[in-house]
């Protein structure tokens, strides 16, 4: 099975995923034999009620948690077999994450927050600065790099978060409720930005959301309920 998955053309393949949490001595199964494939360059929205397993799915895709059973293949690499250090290196090179509450470091300026992932790469400081400026310009925050994120609006902070997620040019972007803390106007700006990153820069995006309007931006929407994809709807042309 592994050899087949390895040679599979899908960018992301989850096969036979099982995941159970232990809560106060009780086993709570989240996934049982879950399968999923996502092609390179797809923009997939994952929706579902609370407790359906959306965040667990995202954590598995990000290598923040491992499955009890099954295999996770991303870009030809088997994630569930990697140790913690290898998963860190994998995230640094292949993954960008956008959080609901931005998760920016408060003691750093916007540009320093964006620069963080680049510190893990052998890039000279001048090139890092150049890259950060370019990305801040891309997300519409040119000239605001020296500002502390705490003094920015929610929408601007989320754009800093997106800039940080894409600054190292990852192939996969995972978004955890990226518009969940924003007003409609700011949410639309962020969604437009994600759409642009998918269409123009070819980023593969998996976005967990409760917001149906957000899901509209995605090319495919998956509905999770009790750890099972209950339908697969609307694949945009």
């Amino acid at each position: 099975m592994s050899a087949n998955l390895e040679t599979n053309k899908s960018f992301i393949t989850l096969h036979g995923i099982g995941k159970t949490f232990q809560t106060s001595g009780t086993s709570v199964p989240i996934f049982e034999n879950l399968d999923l494939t996502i092609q390179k360059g797809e923009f997939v929205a994952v929706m579902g009620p609370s407790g359906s397993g959306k965040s667990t799915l995202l954590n598995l895709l990000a290598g923040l948690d491992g499955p009890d059973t099954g295999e996770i293949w991303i870009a030809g690499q088997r994630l569930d077999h990697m140790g913690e250090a290898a998963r860190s290196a994998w995230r640094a090179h292949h993954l960008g994450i956008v959080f609901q509450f931005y998760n920016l470091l408060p003691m750093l300026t916007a540009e320093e927050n964006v620069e963080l992932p680049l510190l893990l790469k052998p890039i000279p400081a001048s090139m890092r600065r150049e890259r950060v400026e370019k990305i801040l310009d891309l997300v519409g925050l040119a000239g605001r790099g020296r500002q502390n994120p705490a003094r920015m609006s929610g929408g601007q902070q989320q754009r800093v978060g997106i800039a940080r997620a894409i600054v190292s040019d990852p192939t996969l972007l995972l978004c955890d409720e990226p518009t969940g803390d924003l007003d409609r106007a700011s949410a639309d700006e962020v969604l437009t930005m994600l759409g642009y990153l998918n269409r123009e820069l070819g980023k593969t995006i998996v976005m967990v959301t409760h917001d149906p309007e957000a899901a509209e931006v995605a090319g495919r929407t998956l509905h999770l309920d009790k750890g099972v994809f209950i339908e697969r709807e609307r694949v945009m042309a």
Partner: protein
Amino acid sequence: MTFFGLTRKSALRKPLRSILLVISVVAAFFIYGLTASFIAGSQGTAAASDDLLGVMHSAGRSQPLPVAYLPRIAAVPGVAEVSPITRLRGSVRDERNVVAVSAGQPDKLLAVSGRDLGLSQSMIDALGAGRDRVLVGRALAEAQGWKVGDRLTVSAFRTKRRDGSRDWPFEIAAIFDGKSASTDTYFILAQYRYINEGRARGKDTVSTFALRPEPGVTPEELAPRIDALFANSAAPTRTLSEKQFLSAFLSQYADIKHVVTLVVGASFVTLLLIVINTMVFALRERRFEVGVLKTLGFSPSRILLMVLAEALFIFLLGGTIGMGLARLASLALPPALGLVFDPGVMLRAVALVFLLGLVAGALPALTAMRTPILSAFRTR
């Protein structure tokens, strides 16, 4: 931004807490700098000479020796020069303003102590120009505001004059600076003849004989030869180098090095507990951020190094300021304290900074390294 910049910003993210932490490190290293300088100065004997010997009564220096010993000591093989010294302690103007007077033979003083005290022939000539003339050390002259030509009267505590008075008038002939800044110059050099002839009791006795060995002769080989001469006399002697004498004198009170080591050790242990406790709490507040960094791809080992570097940064900053202040204090404090801020003190401080930084950072760093990302995210 660099990793150092990130470390610095993380370490200083709560300015008040960081300042208090740095101040505690500054205080500990300031104490260390001073005490280590004191020990490096052989507990106040740094300025004391190792090739200047004193011959005193074996029962203690309060017991006099006959001046008649002088030619016998001078005749011992290996003795280059010897001067009789008699000491007088008293006060000037105010009884709390205590001064010490060492009286010797001017020409012998130059030969025996000239190099260490920075005496010159012209000073000795000026001293010998009048019976009551004295040389005053720079530290004492500056403290009292005295200058050459001034007259002063020392009211002796014990040494009475033949007329029953305790007042010994002197005229300042010159001021000597000492060989180096750490030389004790807080005393007066007078003439033995003046004191000896003027005192009511103890005539023709000395407090000690100061002698300089011939080149190549060590105090260890010369001292037994001298002491053997008087071993069976009514006034047996004990010969020590100036450094040995001061060390023995100080150790009468306590093992100063041991006391200093305990004090410094206690202050560093306290400091370690404070820093570890503060850093553990600081890191607990930042568990979420550690989770974010790990999510961005910062490996566990990199997180470990970053937290260790934060602790090191605090210790480097505090240690540098503390040792800098200790250095300034060692320059500002009276040379009589014998503080020697040598490279050895600095090297040990650097080693301590790294050792304490690593020890203080180890627990929070290991905790941060082992924190699972999802567990860190749950702390928000």
